[in-house]
C-alpha cells in the first residue's frame, strides 16, 4: 500500500514538472510578453514604445532572462515556499492565491455539506427497489438536473430567486465585506448540477447490492426490512459512492470557473480566468499546480479509501 502511494506521489511530481515546464515555455513566447505589456501599460503606450524601451520594460519585469534560467529560479523559489510574484496584482502569488482558495474552499464546503446527504438519500431510496416508481422518478430528476448546464442553472436560479422573488442578491462579489446570503446562489447552482451524478452512482451501487445473495438471505430470515437496509445493504452500497464523492473535489475546482465568473464570486476559478487573460504566468503556474495536486490527491484518497473499505480489492 505504501509503495503504491509513493509511486503515485512520484508520478504526481513528474507530471507537475512536465506541466510547469510546458507552461513556462508557452508563456515565454513574444505574444504573451506583449500581452502582459498591453495589459499593464495600455495598448497605445506599447505601440508607441521603441524597441529599447520595450527591452528595458522586459528587464524591469525580469522577463529578459532565458526561459530555462527563469524556470530554474522559479523551481528554486518553489522549494523554499516562494511562488513568485503576480504581475497583475504586484503582490506575492501565495497571498493572492491564499485568499481566493479560502473563498472557493468555503464554497466547496457548503456544496459538499448539502450535496452528499441529498444525493445519498435519493440514490439509496431509488436503488432499494429497482424499476419502481420512486426509482424512475429519481433517475429522471437526476438526468434532468445534470443535463442543464451550470450556466443555465445559474441563470434560472438568478432569475427566479434573486430577480423574481428578491430573496437573495443576484451577484456575489462581496463588495461590502463577507455576506453569507450571497453564497446561496453559487452553492445551490453547484449542488443542483452535481447531485444527480452522485445520486445515479449511488443508485447503481445500491441496486447491485440489493440483488446479491446475502440480502436475500437476510430478508428470508425474517429480519425487518429497515434493518436489512440499514445494517446489511448500506455498508456495501456506500463504498462506490465514496470514491465518486472524493473525485468530485477535482471536478469542483474546474467546474467552479463559470459559476464564479457568472456570480462574480472572488474565488479560485475567477482568479484563474483573470490570470490567463492577463498572461500572469506565476499565478497560472501556481493555480495549475494546485489543481493538479488536488486532482492526484483526490485520486489517491479514493483509491486508498476504496481498498480500505473493501478489503476484497488488492492492488498488484
Amino acid at each position, binding site marked *: 500500500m505504501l509503495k503504491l502511494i509513493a509511486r503515485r506521489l512520484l508520478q504526481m511530481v513528474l507530471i507537475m514538472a512536465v506541466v510547469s515546464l510546458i507552461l513556462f515555455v508557452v508563456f515565454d513566447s513574444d505574444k504573451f510578453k506583449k500581452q502582459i505589456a498591453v495589459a499593464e501599460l495600455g495598448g497605445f503606450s506599447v505601440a508607441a514604445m521603441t524597441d529599447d524601451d520595450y527591452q528595458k520594460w522586459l528587464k524591469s519585469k525580469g522577463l529578459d532572462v532565458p526561459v530555462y534560467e527563469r524556470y530554474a529560479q522559479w523551481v528554486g523559489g518553489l522549494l523554499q515556499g516562494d511562488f513568485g510574484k503576480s504581475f497583475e496584482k504586484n503582490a506575492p502569488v501565495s497571498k493572492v492565491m491564499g485568499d481566493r482558495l479560502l473563498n472557493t474552499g468555503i464554497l466547496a464546503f457548503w456544496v459538499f455539506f448539502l450535496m452528499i446527504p441529498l444525493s445519498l438519500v435519493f440514490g439509496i431510496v431509488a436503488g432499494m427497489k429497482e424499476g419502481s416508481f420512486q426509482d424512475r422518478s429519481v433517475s429522471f430528476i437526476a*438526468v434532468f438536473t445534470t*443535463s442543464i448546464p451550470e*450556466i443555465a442553472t445559474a441563470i434560472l436560479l438568478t432569475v427566479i430567486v434573486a430577480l423574481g422573488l428578491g430573496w437573495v442578491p443576484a451577484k456575489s462579489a462581496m463588495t461590502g465585506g463577507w455576506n453569507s446570503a450571497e453564497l446561496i446562489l453559487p452553492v445551490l447552482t453547484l449542488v443542483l448540477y452535481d447531485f444527480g451524478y452522485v445520486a445515479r452512482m449511488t443508485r447503481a451501487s445500491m441496486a447491485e447490492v440489493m440483488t446479491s445473495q446475502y440480502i436475500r438471505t437476510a430478508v428470508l430470515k425474517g429480519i425487518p426490512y429497515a434493518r436489512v437496509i440499514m445494517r446489511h445493504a448500506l455498508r456495501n452500497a456506500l463504498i462506490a459512492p465514496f470514491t465518486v464523492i472524493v473525485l468530485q473535489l477535482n471536478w469542483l475546482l474546474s*467546474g467552479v470557473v463559470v459559476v464564479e465568473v457568472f456570480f462574480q464570486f472572488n474565488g479560485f476559478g475567477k482568479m484563474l480566468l483573470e490570470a490567463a*487573460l492577463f498572461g500572469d504566468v506565476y499565478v497560472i503556474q501556481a493555480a495549475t499546480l494546485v489543481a493538479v495536486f488536488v486532482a492526484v490527491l483526490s485520486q489517491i484518497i479514493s483509491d486508498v479509501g476504496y481498498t480500505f473499505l473493501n478489503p476484497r480489492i488488492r492492488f498488484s
Partner: protein
Amino acid sequence: MTDSTMPAPRLTLVQRLKRPKALIVLSLLMVIPLIAYVMFGEPLARAGIREIVLIPAIPATLILYALAMSSWRESWVAILGGTLVFFWVFVAVSVPFLPLLDPNKPIRPFAQPGTEVGDITFWLGTDLKGRDMLSRMLWGCQRVLVWGVTATAVAYVVGCIFGLVAGYISGIWDEIISFVSNVLLSFPVMVLFILILNYLGPSGFNIVIAVTFASAPAIMRIVRGLALDNKTRDYVFAAQTRGEHPFRIMVVELLPNVRGPIIVDACLRLGYTTVAITTLTFLGLGLQPPDPDWGLMIKEASNLMVWQFSYMLLIPALAVSSLILGFNLMADGLREMSLRD
C-alpha cells in the same frame, strides 16, 4: 450475415435505409452541408450558392429522424431525446429558409416579448442592441451544433487512433501514449481549455483543437480498454492468420465490433462539448461576435440583472439546456436498448 449461401432476401426501402452504409451516407448528407455553410460561408457566398448547399440536408434530416423514431420505438427516453436533438438539427439546416428577421440587424432595443412595431411582431422580444431574439435563438443553434459536432468528431478520430494503437499494438507505444494522456487528464478540463484558447486565440477552429486535447485522452482510454478486451477474440486471430495488415485489423475488424459503447459515449460527449463551447463563449474565449450564438447572448445580457429583461438570459439558457437534455436522454435510451439486447 449468411447471405453468401442463401439468395439475398428482398429488402424494403426502409430496411435498406437502415443498413449502416445508408445511415452513414444520410448522416454525412445532413452534417457536411451544415459544416460547409458555417465554416466556409464566405467563399460559398461569393460563388452564390450559400443557401443552395443546405437543400440536400433538409430531406436527409427528416429521413434520419423518421428512421430513428421507428427503430427506437421501444424506449420513450430515446424518442424524447432524439426529438429534441433532431428539432435543433432541423432548425439549423432550415433556418436560412425560414421567414425570420435578420439576426444581426438592430431594430428596436429592449422590446418586451410580444411587442408589435408596425407590421413586425417580436415574439420573444429584442435584445439590448435591438436584435430580434427569436431569430437570434434559432440562428444560434447552427454555430453551436456545427462546432460541437466537428470538435467531437476530431477528438474521436484522434482518440480512436491512439486508443487502437495503444490497445492493439501495446508495448512501448502504450507506455508513451498512456503517459501523455495521464499528463493531459491531470489538468482540470477548464484549466486546459482556458490555457489552450488563451494561447491560440479565441476562434471556432481553436475550440476544435482545445476540445481535442481535453477529450481525446478520455476517448483513448475507452477505446484502448475495448481493444485490449477484443484483441484476444477469435475473429482477430482469424484475421491475423489470414495475414491482414495490423492497420486493417484495427480499423476494419476491431473498430466496428466495439462501436456500441463508443456511440453511447459519443452522444454524452456531444453534450459535454456543447456545454463547453457555450461556456467558453460566455467567458469570452470562444466564438466571436457579431454572429448569433447562445453563449454570446448570455454574455451580452449577463450584466443586465433586471427582472423585466430576464428573458434575454432565459431564452438562450433554455435553448442550450434543451439541446443538452436531448443528447443525454438519447445516450441514456441507447444504453438502455443496448443492454436489453
